[in-house]
């Protein structure tokens, strides 16, 4: 194909600067105007000798996930890299250090593991670095430079990226790394080129549309919250959500906004509710364990109808589970975790751009519907980088509060006054005559405790009915269908990060001639029953791939529609394998599993 679509993997130990190399490569390629998706795998320990893999997919067209197979594989530590060499496609390149420090015993060297058809390239990274800089500290830079050279990638973009990356360091450090880059680039470009692995010219940075930025999911969330005008943030650190708070801790003060690291997650959400009561746009971020602790206060936010936004980045569960692995198993808790009839809004972005939009829109929804809004990410989405085009004008409404304005003189303010859309006008502290006391007790229109059957029934109805409007929230995609129109053999229903792999699988299935469609469901509560049900009408089989054990989303669909779906629930701790979804599609479509070997597009 003419369009560029190349995946590069870098594998080594944390000590080798593997992730750092990946970051520079990613930023430089984006700088050069390509679209990128990248995701790093870290070791769980703090100690820095576990395995790190940085994967980067570079394209000119929009794509939705990483590929099964890498085209280029760079080893910075053979002992870690050897188990992964298999992921390199046929005729793909395996690049390694031809003169490693320790002389490895037989078979310990990666070259002994390259399979026929894969193309091994040895370069003396360490030596290149030492010759160019007098030290081996820049070994990782030399190595990535080799790849840049091999593919004749624009040097300028790399040099700029290296300069900004080491900007804060001493001049000498920058110079050394630039020297290492040049030497590595030369070494790479001197070598014969892989015939079929050319980079097509990049689309160039998309212009008119907006500015192109490269962000991971958490950075996109932070940006979304800021662009939507976050006023206050209260949070407690927890992997993989911490970097949202860390980004905000830097950015919010610059804008005169306030962030407090609280003593725990209960106080974080409680402070959000206190702030929300005053009209402040307030948010918190956490992961499963923190969400579990927030359940009671979330219920208060529901019954007292106080807006609050909670961003949850899921990791492996239950309990402390697998803090550095991804999973989508907090859906149940997000939907049902609070006691009582405490329905709330839950939305889950499917890519990095969606993280930005959902974060910003969450403020709109929380305010407009006077309810808690949970934005569900997962570690894979939080940490994966994508090029995103941001509109010059932030696409968020800065004020969605239905405010109470006193009409006639002796009107008494009713906080929970009846209203056609079941959303009652708010007065906030400081308003001259809107004094009222909100409560977690059931209450009447005046917000006075009241537990009469009619009152509780009516208030319950109000709290539930008002949420339906979220399904048609302005400028927000609640659900969307992709792929073949009309009747299909297999319909895919997916949410969150897994939608990326789902869409890739759908495209491959179509390529195999299977009539196939996919629907992403971004709003999980309230549930877009009509849209999903309509989609299911078109499908002979409905397959629901998701990253949890219980098939939590599949169960949600069945609970809502009382219609059966096929659940593909897996807990690998990483993204779902496109091949696994594809195999299931084939099975449902009645195809004998053809080409189950890694597809080689």
């Amino acid at each position: 194909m003419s369009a560029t679509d190349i995946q590069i993997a870098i594998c080594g130990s944390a000590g080798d600067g593997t992730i750092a190399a990946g970051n520079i490569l990613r930023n430089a390629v984006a700088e050069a105007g390509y679209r990128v998706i990248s995701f790093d795998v870290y070791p769980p320990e703090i100690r820095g000798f576990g395995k790190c893999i940085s994967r980067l997919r570079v394209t000119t067209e929009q794509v939705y996930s990483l590929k099964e197979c890498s085209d280029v594989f760079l080893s910075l530590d053979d002992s870690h890299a050897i188990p992964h060499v298999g992921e390199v496609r046929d005729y793909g390149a395996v690049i390694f250090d031809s003169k490693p420090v320790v002389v490895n015993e037989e078979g310990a060297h990666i070259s002994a593991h390259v399979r026929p058809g894969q193309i091994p390239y040895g370069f003396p990274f360490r030596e290149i670095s030492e010759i160019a800089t007098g030290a081996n500290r820049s070994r990782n830079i030399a190595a990535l430079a080799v790849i840049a050279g091999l593919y004749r990638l624009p040097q300028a973009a790399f040099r700029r990226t290296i300069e900004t990356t080491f900007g804060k360091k001493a001049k000498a450090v920058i110079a050394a790394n630039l020297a290492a880059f040049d030497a590595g680039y030369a070494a790479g470009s001197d070598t014969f080129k892989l015939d079929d692995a050319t980079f097509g010219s990049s689309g160039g940075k998309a212009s008119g549309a907006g500015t192109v930025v490269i962000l991971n999911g958490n950075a996109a969330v932070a940006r979304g919250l800021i662009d939507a005008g976050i006023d206050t943030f209260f949070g407690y650190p927890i992997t993989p959500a911490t970097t949202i708070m860390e980004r905000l801790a830097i950015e919010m003060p610059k804008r005169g906004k306030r962030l407090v690291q609280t003593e725990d997650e209960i106080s974080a959400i409680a402070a959000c509710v206190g702030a929300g009561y005053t009209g402040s746009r307030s948010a918190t971020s956490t992961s499963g364990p923190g969400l579990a602790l927030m359940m009671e206060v979330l219920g208060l936010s529901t019954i007292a109808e106080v807006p609050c936004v909670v961003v949850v980045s899921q990791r492996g569960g239950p309990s402390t589970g697998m803090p550095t692995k991804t999973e989508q198993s907090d859906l149940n808790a997000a939907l049902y975790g609070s006691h009582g009839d405490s329905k709330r809004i839950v939305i889950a972005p499917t890519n990095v751009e969606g993280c930005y939009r959902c974060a910003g829109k969450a403020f709109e929804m929380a305010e407009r519907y006077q309810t808690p809004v949970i934005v569900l990410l997962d570690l894979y989405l939080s940490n994966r980088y994508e090029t995103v085009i941001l509109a010059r004008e932030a696409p968020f409404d800065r004020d969605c509060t239905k405010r109470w304005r006193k009409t006639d003189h002796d009107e008494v303010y009713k906080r929970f006054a009846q209203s056609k859309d079941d959303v009652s006008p708010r007065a906030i502290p400081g308003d001259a005559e809107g004094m009222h006391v909100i409560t977690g007790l059931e209450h009447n229109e005046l917000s006075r405790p009241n537990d009469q059957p009619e009152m509780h029934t009516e208030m319950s109805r109000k709290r539930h009915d008002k949420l339906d409007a979220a399904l048609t929230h302005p400028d927000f995609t609640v659900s969307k269908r992709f792929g073949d129109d009309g009747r299909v053999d297999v319909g895919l229903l997916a949410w969150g990060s897994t939608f990326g792999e789902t869409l890739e699988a759908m495209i491959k299935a179509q390529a195999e001639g299977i009539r196939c469609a996919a629907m992403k469901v971004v709003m999980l509560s309230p549930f877009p029953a009509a849209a999903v049900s309509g989609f299911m009408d078109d499908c002979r089989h409905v397959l629901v791939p998701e990253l949890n054990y219980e098939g939590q989303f599949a169960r949600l669909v069945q609970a809502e529609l009382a219609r059966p779906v096929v659940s593909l629930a897996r807990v690998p701790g990483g993204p779902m394998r496109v091949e696994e979804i594809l195999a299931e599609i084939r099975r449902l479509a009645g195809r004998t599993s053809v080409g189950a070997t890694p597809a080689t597009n």
Partner: protein
Amino acid sequence: MTHIAKPVHLDDKLEEVRSSGRLEYRSKALPTWCPGCGYFAIVDGVATVLKDMGIQLKDAVVVSGIGCASRFPFFLSTYGIHSLHGRVLPVATGVKIANERLTVIAVGGDGDGFAIGGCHVPHAARRNIDITYLLFDNGIYGLTKGQVSPTSALGFKTPTSPYENMDQPLNPLLMVLSHGASWVGQAYAGHPEHLRKMIAMAAAHRGFSFLNILSPCVTFDRTNRTYSNLGMAVCDLPADHNPTDRLAAMAIAQKTDRPALGLYYHTIRPTLGDNLDALIVKAGGTPSPSCGAGR
């Protein structure tokens, strides 16, 4: 079968309040407290102080947790949040951080603050969030009908300590002093005048002020914190007590058999709001008293 005398004097009380002209600060809701509960004196005190300080109803937010004490906000006519058991301080912190223009008063019981809410007190104190925290310390769980609390006396028999309470009680005053609070005092519901004075001082303090209010639960505690027992036990702080000497304050706070009433300790240091604004300036931003609140 229990017979409770009709609370005739309740209405007289409301009358007195009405005539005293403090009514605007009192809501029309007649307190659901038992006749004779110490809490009535506190609601009077707060209403008076707010009026005397010239704080407008619209600018005051009274936050509480859950408990008899926490019913408090309903009996004032300001803004208020009747939140969750134990969460009064984080909720109040959220209110104040979002809008420094507001006067924030946090109220709650001994169980609310020092059992389930115990995690939050030290942090409100150390950060010096500019709110006033009134602890209604009756040494019992009133709302749930009289179980033992963290400040219950040794030997106290309750439905959950039917043989006797053997857990050494906590000492809220001593604890909050050790958390680094910038204003710490104690009052007694049976001395409404002095109580009012202390509430006024606490509210006037810029920073976190903690006022421990000894109050009898007339319905479920007939043996320990009765008006008569407390009336005899309480005493004044030593005339020569220096309220800037924290160690001296701690020494007195240790004497729980004779609870001393008055100002134990105070100091002036930046509030959480001051610090957050300082960070904003450092970051090159411009502080604003209300963080978007009332947008």
